[in-house]
């Protein structure tokens, strides 16, 4: 047990570091492929962050893009304007988005189901519109020229730590408690569980992870724009989670990767046909919509979810 953990803690970063050298070499992998691989990792973190609050704790959030935006803008602002190094900037992004999660968590605790979903949707839009109207954050033009600090190594190390933390929580008592809140809030109160405290914790933790993904994203694309964190982004994150299997943590991670990869495959197909290529954004959304419907009807538990036995 101990030995296995030590091997993992040393082995994973080391192998990521080795792969990084190999994968970042433009003569082996084209920058286009590297771009897709890194975005796959970032989206996997996002999908896991959504799964933690919605799949595990059962509090449906349509505002993950808002937390992501806070992480992206706050870290980019520091590295761009104040030349802060990457790691402190990421920490700042984590803390700020966690605070946002905490603040959103408190009032939404009185809300359930649809009402909570609408409140988080509203939060995401508030963040986007607020950024749009802040000249110091670039307003509608966004922030440009953010130093490219993210790499395959940093993104996948962040993903590994995210998965480690979420899975460790999921299989221990805190995770069981969060699952019980999803299953039956009243019964878990009667079992002595402080439901309010755990829901706020789940929101804070989930927001911090989304903020982390945002910070990595900003320092990879070198450009952040309010439109990157729109309502559609939140929907895309939900799609990743549902596709992978809600409440499993690793399922959404895979879902996030697939949803990043699929449009690229689609693009290759569309390039054959000029008419479809002209409307490629429309075709992409149509494709996602059909995919989501397909899963909800035929496999509602997602790729990795367990089929539920009927009582």
């Amino acid at each position, binding site marked *: *047990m101990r030995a296995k*953990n030590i091997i993992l803690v040393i082995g994973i970063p080391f192998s990521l570091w080795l792969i990084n050298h190999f994968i970042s070499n433009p003569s082996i992998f084209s920058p286009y492929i590297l771009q897709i691989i890194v975005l796959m990792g970032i989206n996997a973190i996002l999908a896991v962050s959504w799964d933690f609050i919605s799949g595990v704790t059962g509090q449906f959030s349509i505002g993950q893009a808002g937390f992501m935006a806070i992480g992206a803008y706050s870290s980019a602002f520091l590295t761009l304007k104040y030349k802060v190094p990457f790691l402190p900037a990421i920490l700042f992004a984590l803390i700020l988005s966690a605070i946002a999660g905490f603040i959103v968590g408190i009032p939404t605790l009185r809300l359930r189901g649809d009402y909570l979903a609408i409140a988080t949707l509203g939060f995401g839009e508030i963040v986007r519109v607020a950024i749009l109207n802040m000249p110091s954050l670039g307003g509608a033009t966004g922030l440009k020229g953010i130093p490219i600090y993210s790499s395959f190594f940093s993104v996948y190390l962040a993903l590994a730590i995210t998965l*480690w*933390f979420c899975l*460790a*929580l999921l*299989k*221990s*008592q*805190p995770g*069981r*408690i969060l*699952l*019980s809140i999803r*299953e*039956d809030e*009243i*019964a*878990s*109160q*009667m*079992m*002595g*569980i*402080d*439901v309010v405290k755990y829901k706020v*914790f789940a929101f804070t933790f989930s927001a911090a992870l989304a903020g982390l993904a945002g910070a990595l994203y900003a320092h990879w694309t070198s450009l952040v724009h309010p439109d990157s964190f729109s309502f559609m982004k939140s929907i895309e994150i939900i799609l990743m989670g549902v596709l992978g299997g809600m409440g499993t943590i690793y399922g959404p991670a895979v879902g996030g990767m697939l949803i990043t990869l699929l449009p690229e495959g689609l693009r290759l197909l569309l390039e054959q046909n000029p008419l479809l290529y002209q409307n490629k954004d429309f075709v992409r959304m149509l494709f996602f919509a059909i995919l989501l419907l397909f899963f909800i009807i035929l496999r509602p538990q997602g790729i990795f979810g367990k089929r*539920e*036995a*009927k*009582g």
Partner: protein
Amino acid sequence: MKEPILRVEGITVRFGGLVALKEVTFSVEEGELLGIIGPNGAGKTTLFNTITGAVSPEKGRIYFQGKDITSLPPHKRARLGIARTFQNLRLFSRLTVEDNIKLAMGLPYPAFAPLFSLPSYHKMEKQMSESAIALLKTFHLYPYRDRIASALPYGERKRLEIARALALKPKLLLLDEPTAGLSHQEAISLMEELKELRKGFSLTIILIEHNMRVVMGYCGRLITLNYGEIIAEGTPEEIANNPAVLQAYLGEESLC
């Protein structure tokens, strides 16, 4: 005189214009098995909800072991030692039987302990598994421990709910119709198990029950509620012969 484990004083609960409980006052001595009976809609479950904190009373106070708990939130009352089961089962249906039990054991290590795989985490998880398994064996649920709760047969689910309530290590156990839906045989064996447990865990039990054979055979004292008011209190024999109780259950004409 010894302080009763639970003292309910003048509790009034109103849902809009409906008075669900009206000036309800009673106390429960430690180790007692108190039965609450009454026709449908008499306020029995509301009384449980008020004691556990799911419903807050308009008037009146509740004391548990001499401590005023009227304004405590439900989870704190549970931690003090008040556990309950529900009339229409509220298990965590997509979790395993064992996890259902472990959930009630609180958080015995810091929440970050599993993140870093700390020794306290492994030690406490092991202890939790052991006591969960012991409890499952007592309730003959051990063979089902890895199944998800919703996959159990009805009688086993009822027993699991009681086992889960006991995992809280309660001093007072509130059972809402524990034998409803069970066959006579199952009901009797469940009551025998509870009788044994009461000794082992030094439990005080309040139970709501419609099965008169269970009530008469096992409860030491009975309270009868009707339209939110206590209309009779006494031993099973006294209650069985009380005209007010007969009237509440059978209507006025039955007395003529």
